[in-house]
């Protein structure tokens, strides 16, 4: 199981700005280890987010997204106290979901 994400969600007027940091190697499959063997691709392919349970975001990522990825997006119609949950799935099927409260 990967380490938890860091999610910061700040209310701004009737919106919430969400900043997410995910702990993931994001291997491109192009790198070789010190013994010269290619390190297989291992990266987050799909990211979804929801506000109080209803989906607001779907994104698909390729191998170009940086290691320990950062993402920022803004949800409409959100206020302090609402629950934002973010989930990712990688190409090995590993999953992670974490939640934060809009401040």
């Amino acid at each position, binding site marked *: 199981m990967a*380490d938890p994400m860091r999610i910061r969600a700040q209310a701004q007027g009737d919106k919430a700005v969400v900043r997410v*940091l995910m702990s993931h190697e994001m291997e491109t499959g192009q790198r070789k280890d010190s013994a010269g063997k290619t390190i297989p691709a291992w990266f987050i392919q799909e990211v979804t987010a929801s506000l109080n349970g209803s989906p607001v975001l779907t994104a698909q990522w390729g191998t170009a997204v940086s290691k320990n990825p950062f993402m*920022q997006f803004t949800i409409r119609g959100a206020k302090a106290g609402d629950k934002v949950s973010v989930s990712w799935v990688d190409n090995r099927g590993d999953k992670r979901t974490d939640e934060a409260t809009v401040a």
Partner: protein
Amino acid sequence: MRRGLLVRSGAWAMATLLAGAAAQAQKNTADGIAEYRKMLEDGNPADLFEAKGEALWKQKRGPKNASLESCDLGKGPGVVKGAFVELPRYFADTAKVQDLESRLVSCMQALQGFDGAAIAGTPFGRGEQDNVTALATYVAAASRGLRFSLPQGHPEERRLYEVGKRVFYFRGGPYDFSCASCHGEDGKRIRLQDLPNLTKNPGDGVGFAAWPAYRVSNGQMWGMQLRLNDCYRQQRFPYPGFGSEVTVALGVYMGVNAKGAESIAPAIKR
């Protein structure tokens, strides 16, 4: 006379233009790098390691199944805030001057029953060594914004400063480099990498006041021990032991020189 003047002033103007262009290109590069770094500050992956370190600090682990919440980092058992900006310092229980990472290993051994020597011998980024880095990130973050003020009251602390200074200037290896070859003067750069002058206070958030830091180039969290280790690798020196006297002495030398500088650790670096 008029024509001569014209020609000469034309040439002079051209020269300034050229010089200006070169300086302009140079300024743009430095500005460009500063702009790039600014964009990364918000959302530093070091936060992930800080959270992991906080969990490890509180979690009961090791043969003695104990947490680190009673570990004395120099300001009393369990006191984390402010500890980072006063390290390395002398510890009576180990009768040694220790930096943050070697002190954490001492606590992991005394409180949790881990084998300190085994941790020190583990390569960076693996096993408990990875946890030491996360713990160091957590402890450093608790002092963000505070100013460095290493104690120099104990004779061992003063002695280590002098030893550290001599180690800093020690030239050797196939390239004849010392730390001072790169960090001995103001305004120097390796490629586009600014080099702080570590023989004096380099200023807020610079040099000693910026590590542990998250390195974007390899996506790794580095404590000061790994930072010094890789410096010596590029200095073409042999391998400095984790927590060895040389690394702690350099920490005292740089930490005391940084007196009054504001800590921005954990920072984000190339």
